[in-house]
């Protein structure tokens, strides 16, 4: 595929993810919000694919879109949220929230020009980590799934096991919190 069409795909995915994120946080019906956020997750998975993170894209689709969001949808449908449609969706303080979001975006937007991320960061990091700068070209992460596997079971084995403990604690906590307490004598 030519570079131009890949860029077109990237800008489509970027625009669609911004639009679906905006719709996701502003829709009144919680189920509609969830479906827009699902669209956001799938578009972000596409961006991950373009960025050479195939494994991350697969995890994004399977875990985020397939498990976490469906879990949210189940809880939305489990609760009776019909009152949600008649009440205001935002608190009265929403202009301040919009200001906070916009000022964060402005801060990040301007700070990314301060150090000229495209040029200097790459060279300084390459010196700091010993990665040759030629590896920053697209396609540098050829076979990134194998690399991720080696890193996960090599230097990151301890954090990987800790993640399983965190998930176990979350499972136990969720069961303890959500189970129905039987009031006995």
């Amino acid at each position, binding site marked *: 595929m030519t570079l131009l069409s*890949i860029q077109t795909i*990237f800008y489509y995915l*970027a625009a669609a*993810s911004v639009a679906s*994120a905006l719709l*996701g*946080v502003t829709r009144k019906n*919680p189920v509609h*919000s*969830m479906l827009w956020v699902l669209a*956001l*997750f799938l578009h*972000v998975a596409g*961006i*991950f694919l373009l*960025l*050479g993170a195939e494994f*991350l894209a697969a*995890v*994004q689709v399977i875990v*985020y879109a397939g*498990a*976490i969001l469906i*879990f*949210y949808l189940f*809880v*939305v449908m*489990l*609760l009776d*949220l019909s009152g949600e449609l008649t*009440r205001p*969706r*935002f*608190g009265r*303080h*929403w202009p301040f*929230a*919009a200001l*906070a*979001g916009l000022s*964060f*975006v402005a801060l*990040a*937007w301007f700070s*990314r*020009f301060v150090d000229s*991320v495209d040029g200097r960061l790459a060279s300084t990091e390459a010196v700091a*980590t010993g990665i040759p700068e030629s*590896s920053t*070209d*697209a396609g540098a992460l050829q076979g990134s799934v194998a690399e*991720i596997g080696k*890193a996960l079971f090599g230097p990151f084995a301890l954090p990987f096991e800790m*993640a399983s403990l*965190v998930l176990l*604690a*979350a499972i136990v906590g*969720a069961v*303890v*919190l959500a189970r129905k307490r039987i009031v006995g004598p």
Partner: protein
Amino acid sequence: MIVPMSVVLGLSAVLFGIGLFGFLARRNIILMFVSIEVMLNAVNLSLAGFSWHLGDPRGQILALFVIAVAAAEAGIGLGLVIALNRNKPGAGVADLTQLKW
């Protein structure tokens, strides 16, 4: 390099800002959690972007751990929502004022 790194970072910043706005403005606790997920996705996007830019898989590994923690957070958070819903129907944060006084 298909797009400049700054474009990826700008997209990540915009998504994070949208998530921040949603978290601060929404009154429904479930949609506040979903806004947190939007913010975590924005962070994952910039991690994957840096990983691609620097040719280093460690960014992707950090993003994987972020996803694992997001799953744990979703489980605990929604368990709390169900427990709260047993005391007081609905999911509005404005109703949860028992700890206020």
